[in-house]
């Protein structure tokens, strides 16, 4: 054993005495080229649709793709799997390949081996891809689809407006076009894709301590900086003041109204108006050291006593925007589309903010809105009701 070691050590450390240096360098160079060729060959081979679907797990994806415009079309130009799913530049490609080994492993171990198992993981797998597209602005899509070369006038009339807007914002394709090539995962309990534009808007907000903002999406509230003690939930489009930012945490101040009947868990934006801005845990709502009551008065419409309250909470950093307008844009669009399927949708300012919840809950069952969208649309209706818009009647 020792002999072999010594021989090896000498082979690498002693200069060659028999073969010329030039020969060695040349042979080494050629060997290097061959190895590189092999590596590239392997890269290319594993970068073909044929390779991808050689595992039966991926065959379902190919079947799904076929009837879509990216699978069959009049000109016969279609992408293969890697065109969309493997980055085109070298280092990202290598990184993606390394990650792919996990998928191969999952296939081999049978984690996603059957259609049912694949279905169970579809949302997670799709989310991985969506995250990647979000991070790179749907770079792979845009190798073919280039905003600067689009003729908006040739688009369907209904597509022109949204596409012009998307081009202006340089929006990532996958923000809107999820499910374009493969089946959508079951999203009933997850959020409306239109909310992604709000996340994006929130991401680009420059937050300064002491300034007031609008909450972009529903978020968890905590009573501690470590974000360990849950306190409740702050709703979409709620005005708040950012007090300070510490690491991943954001300290905010909420100023709102609540009813004295019950535990005072539900907080509203205005006196006497049932526009929900936050929902607190029972203990939090009753915690006098946390919740400061500034004022009490009777609501003439119900006889209930309403309290003006203030409290300071912690939430995750980010998640706020300067103006609620992008939120209302999303809501208005949902309202106009979903609520005109059966009838003409009523003028928003035709009812007041306390009438809308009753009307809305009576009709929303006919729509396909998820829970978060329902809450958003109701909030939009209330905030644009006759209490705020006096022009209608």
């Amino acid at each position: 054993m020792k002999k072999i070691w010594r021989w090896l050590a000498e082979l690498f450390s002693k200069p060659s005495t028999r073969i010329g240096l030039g020969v060695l360098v040349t042979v080494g160079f050629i060997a290097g080229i061959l190895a590189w060729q092999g590596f590239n060959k392997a890269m290319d081979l594993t970068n073909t649709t044929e390779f991808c679907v050689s595992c039966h797990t991926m065959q379902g994806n190919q079947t799904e793709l076929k009837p879509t415009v990216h699978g069959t079309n009049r000109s016969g130009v279609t992408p293969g799997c890697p065109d969309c799913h493997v980055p085109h530049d070298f280092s990202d490609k290598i990184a993606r390949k390394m990650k792919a080994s996990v998928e191969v492993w999952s296939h081999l171990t049978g984690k996603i081996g059957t259609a049912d198992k694949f279905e169970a993981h579809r949302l997670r797998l799709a989310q991985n891809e969506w995250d990647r597209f979000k991070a790179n602005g749907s770079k792979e899509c845009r190798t073919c689809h280039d905003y600067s070369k689009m003729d908006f006038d040739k688009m369907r009339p209904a597509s022109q407006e949204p596409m012009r807007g998307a081009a202006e914002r340089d929006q990532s394709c996958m923000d809107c076009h999820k499910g374009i090539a493969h089946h959508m995962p079951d999203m009933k309990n997850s959020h409306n894709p239109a909310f992604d534009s709000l996340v994006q808007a929130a991401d680009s907000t420059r937050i300064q301590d002491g300034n007031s903002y609008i909450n972009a999406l529903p978020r968890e509230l905590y009573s501690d900086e470590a974000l360990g003690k849950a306190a409740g939930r702050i709703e979409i489009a709620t005005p708040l003041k950012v007090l300070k930012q510490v690491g991943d945490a954001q300290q905010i101040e909420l100023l709102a109204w609540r009813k004295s009947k019950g535990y005072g868990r539900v907080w509203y934006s205005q006196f006497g108006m049932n526009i929900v801005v936050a929902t607190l845990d029972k203990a939090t709502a009753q915690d006098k050291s946390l919740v400061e009551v500034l004022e009490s008065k009777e609501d003439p419409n119900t006889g209930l006593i309403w309290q003006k309250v203030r409290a300071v909470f912690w939430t995750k950093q980010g998640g706020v925007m300067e103006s609620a307008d992008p939120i209302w844009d999303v809501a208005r669009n949902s309202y106009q589309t979903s609520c005109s399927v059966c009838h003409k949708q009523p003028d928003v300012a035709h009812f007041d903010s306390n009438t809308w919840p009753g009307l809305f809950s009576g009709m929303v069952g006919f729509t396909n809105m998820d829970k978060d969208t329902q809450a958003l649309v109701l909030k939009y209706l209330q905030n644009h009701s006759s209490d705020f818009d006096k022009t209608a009647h």
Partner: protein
Amino acid sequence: MINNSRRTFLKGLTLASMTALIGPSLLSIGDAAAAPAAGAGAGAGAGANNDGWKMAGSHWGAFRARIAGGKVVEVRAFEHDKHPTEMLNGIIGLIYSPSRIRYPMVRLDWLKNRHRSNTAERGDNRFVRVTWDEALDLVYGEMERVQQTYGPSGLHTGLVGWRQTGQFHTCGNHMLRAVGMHGHTVTTAGDYSTGAGQVIMPYVLGSTEVYSQGTSWELILKHSKNIIFWASDPVKNLQVGWNCETHESYAYIEQLKGKIARKEIRVISIDPVRSKTQNYLACEKQYVNPMTDVALMLGIAHTLYSEKLYNKQFLDSYALGFEQFLPYLLGTAADKTAKTPEWAAAICGVPAARIRELARLMAKERTQLIFGWAIQRQQHGEQPYWMGAVLAAMLGQIGLPGGGISYAHHYSSIGVPASGAAMPGAFPLNLDAGKKPKYPSTDYKGYSAVIPCARAIDALLEPGKVIDYNGSKVKLPPYKMAIYCGSNQWHRQQDRNKMKKAFRALETVVSVDYTWTATCRFADIVLPACTQFERNDIDAYGSYSNRGVIAMHKLVDPLFHSRPDFEIFRELTRRFGRDKEYSRGMEEMEWVQQLYEQCRKENGSKFPMPAFAEFWQKGYVLFPKGKPSTRHADFREDAEINALGTPSGFIEIYSRKIANYKYPDCPGHPVWLEKNERSHGGPKSERYPLWMQSVHPDKRLHSQMCDSEPLRATYAIQGREPLFISPQDAKKRGIRHGDLLRVFNDRGQALVGAHVSADFPPGVVRLQEGAWYGPTGPEIGALDTYGDPNTLTQDIGTSRLAQAISANTCLVQVEKYTGKVPAVTAFGGPKEVKPK
């Protein structure tokens, strides 16, 4: 023993749901054999032989139709519809009705004099045939003139109600999008079916209730000990649905019948009339004088309170305002009248002892109250609905399975749980984002842009009048032109002779429909749409159960010169250069496919749907049964987080908000209010002793299908609409079954056929709504030759709150008709004349 029966029951349930799951695939083999060519030629329209079986959907349910020689020759209920309605027998008669509109037509005098025509001639039924281009040019020209002369307050787009089914062709969306691209109009709020209910209930229970999904039938059957059908006739009304109807509720009603027979559930029908439901179930009947239900409820409430049978804890935790209501109930309020059972008995005709018995029965065990819509279609129609909620709150079972109150178990299979699947969207009603109408003006000159739908006639008679409506003021706009599309204004609105007078103020009336309704007769320009069976579409299967998606194959090409609404309105928008924007550059099948694919995408892998071609061939996709649920259970579980949509978030027995409106006809809590006319000793009953109820018909969907000759022949008497009358009232007037009668009051008169039936008590007659209006002439007061009840009903608001219709507050007299018998003029279309 109890356990045992419950297990058997559960086993039954499992079996039932397994059948539901296995059923489709097993049965579809049968389909393929029975209907080999289904879908094969559909949508192709390529002149090839289109014969064979095709799939269709409708308000009356899904069915397969056999085409032979280019005609629909046979209709068979969809194999998954276990309780199809008899009305399917009317489909062929509807398609090939002699009343079909064949060509675009213009009223003779309007063609001569345009908007300066003699409008008193409207209704004389003289029309001139024109080409499509001429007709659409006229419509467009009038829209231009009205927008330029009057602005948006000059044009009214009529409420679209029970349009033909189909999500793409849904005609209201087409009309509103096309007209909306041109300019703004006067539109409506509310509807004719539930006008009072949908306005009052948000104040009380925080939702419209009338269109809300209710507690699942299987929970009611499992938990209820008593079921009270209060003026509700589900067996009659569940035959039709808003989308393609599944008739799934009937399976539960069948089970209920068994449970009544085995004395497991007690069912009482509170109704002046022995209803179809009552006859089917063989359940108990509780007679009540017409329109006095609130008095009966107050008597019950008084008993609940005085015998301490009410649930105080529930009221404390979940309701507000019981204290303000009590003085009224107990007689210490301003009227100084205790609402005792004896007080109630004198008004409602139910003995005091029986009222007490009813109260004790309801409080003793789990009791489900199920209300119909009829009692809110009367003067003060808000009150019975509000008082019903107060009764349910006092019983304290709201939010418990098999308890509480429902206002809609007779409608579109409410009570069948939703599958959870998404349903197809529709052709867009609105303008696309960023688009403005050709006439962008929103200057209504101080008039209201939106009016309560039932006050549309008042606006013509008293333009500029300011009326109260739901806490706000409405200034009635003087509209000069009206467009109706797939809606029969001259069926649903009350008081024909008032309408005749009012319509004279209109310069131009346009009606788009497939059949020559009275609305067409009283229009100036009539455009023939085709029926839903002459175009391709898709529809939701089950408005509430979301059971599936149904393909609606074009069975035959549009008859005569009729066209799909899509094409009519695209041609209209072409006249101002916006047809591409209107259609988004897509044709019928592209739209149908897109609506399907969007729905498929939304359902994803949770509710898998086949690709469009496969679906279209098969004709349907079905989704599994949903989870049963209890109405308001979440509120009962946590009233703070799951607050109701009322101003306070709680059940409002007393509404400060309503009280602050200071409406004498709708004060702050439910009250008994005398009607302006009421039978059984009420006002005007000496002169007109019979109460006329105009319920939803048994063999029509409102006025739809009245023109189907073979179906009408099964119920008409001497060619007239039947008037149901008690043997006692018939005898008193010397009337025999089958006689021709004149029914009349100060508002109008109609010829009807006598249908003598022991289902009706003395003092009550029934003339079903939707019977076509066929006057002898255009003059006010003309005899209606077929029997439209709205010749006799009064056009007044329910109250200042809802301003809804009061059709069921109507007294009449009946006599044998002995005069010269005029022919029925309601059907068969216009008199076509040649212009001079």
